[in-house]
């Protein structure tokens, strides 16, 4: 543990990944240039934003959607890491989480069609995404969107940059996806939606991540088209339940993606949560907040 700290805290926020990304630094090692650390962490988030944007024509995601059905497309190591993690998760949950749903979302008018890309094959799924040594190849024309996992990854990456610069305690908040730095305990309010909460829930964690996804009507209305990630990957349909899910995990990337699996699968996701060392809490109008447990 460091013996002395410069005074804190310091917090800044920038708009990235379609939301407000806020970085707070509470404690740091002597000699750490905190503002430079935070600026570099934001630069990393900005890079991830540009690499993984569905809309920007020069992003890795756009290049994959245009060309990966013809040849393996080389991509940045960060995009590769996110796609690999998404693929592992998709295989583990048999496609409940699937980053290849973007074709359905475009067809449903939820996303603009990617310019210059061939029409997405409606039968394509995560099984048609192949990670190779020199890039990523699609076995069918398809469109990926990493919106359901990239914010958690961005929060992880920003936290890593901060640690490298000597930040010892703080947190990265990528629009409600939190990654904490330092043993804490960090107290985090779980918020289900708008209005006065019917039940208040607080979690205390050490170094780790908490992500929340909500399929409540008020959140969907608030976000308009942004709530598209809540589809059931296997059924290729929007979810019908109206609830919120918070997942606590070691990494933000897993916490972020696992919220979607729990929203879609409920307690059937428990083995997967255990596999990732994660736990989940669910909020619904009738029962309030409760830990996700096996169905009786």
């Amino acid at each position, binding site marked *: 543990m460091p013996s002395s700290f410069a005074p804190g805290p310091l917090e800044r926020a920038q708009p990235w990944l*379609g939301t407000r990304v806020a970085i707070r630094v509470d404690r740091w090692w002597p000699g750490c240039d905190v503002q430079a650390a935070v600026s570099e962490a934001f630069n990393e988030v900005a890079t991830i934003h540009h690499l993984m944007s569905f809309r920007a024509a020069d992003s890795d995601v756009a290049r994959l959607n245009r060309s990966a059905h013809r040849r393996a497309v080389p991509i940045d190591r960060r995009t590769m890491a996110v796609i690999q993690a998404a693929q592992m998760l998709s295989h583990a949950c048999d496609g409940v989480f699937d980053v290849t749903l973007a074709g359905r979302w475009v067809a449903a008018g939820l996303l603009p069609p990617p310019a210059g890309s061939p029409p997405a094959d409606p039968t394509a799924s995560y099984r048609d995404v192949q990670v190779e040594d020199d890039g990523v190849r699609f076995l069918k024309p398809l469109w990926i969107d990493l919106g359901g996992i990239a914010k958690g990854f961005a929060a992880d990456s920003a936290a890593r940059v901060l640690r490298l610069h000597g930040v010892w305690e703080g947190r990265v908040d*990528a629009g409600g996806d939190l990654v904490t730095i330092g043993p804490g305990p960090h107290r985090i309010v779980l*918020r289900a939606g708008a209005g006065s909460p019917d039940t*208040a829930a607080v979690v*205390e*964690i050490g170094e780790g991540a908490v992500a929340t996804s909500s399929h409540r009507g008020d959140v969907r209305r608030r976000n308009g088209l*942004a709530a598209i990630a809540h589809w059931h990957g296997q059924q290729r349909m929007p979810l019908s339940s109206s609830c919120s899910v918070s997942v606590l995990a070691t990494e933000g990337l897993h916490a972020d993606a696992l919220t979607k699996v729990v929203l879609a699968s409920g307690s059937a996701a428990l083995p997967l949560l255990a596999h990732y060392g994660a736990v989940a809490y669910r909020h619904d109008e009738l029962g309030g907040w409760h830990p996700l447990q096996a169905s009786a």
Partner: protein
Amino acid sequence: MDHRFLLLPATALISVAPSLHATTYLTADQARELMFPGRKFTHEEVLLTPEQVRAITQASGIKPLSTRLQLWRGADGERFIVDEVLGRHEFITFALGLDAAGAVTDVEILQYNESYGSEIRLAAWRAQFTGKHDGAPLKLDQDIQNISAATLSCKHITEGVKRLLATDAIVLRPRSA
């Protein structure tokens, strides 16, 4: 995942009215110094004419909230603008840094006023946590500053930047060219 989960009954919350919560991240001066370290800037308040407002609205598709614009000009033609955007649930003050050619160098959120679920910040609400849960008492000696919630989009800032880029092209840039 090692953690503690604390649950508070709803009855304590009934009397708490929602209100606006504001988070201040940076002052305008701090943001400018971060974007353009050590550079000299001159402040001016720009008043947009009705014609300029119309032109900006037409070019960007977004009508300016105000006809007054807070602008700082750097010695080498850089520009630093502080402006506000109004969403359905938030009021955001942000700063935009532009290089001499009018390209965005930085965007920083200076203040974020949120009315969406802001009741959780209230002292009366927070006080309910002290010693009221099962197990060991929890004493909050500071605000709960961490909130995990469904991602709320902040497209209004993107629109605000687009509007300021149009403002820059139509009103600000010709003078520095």
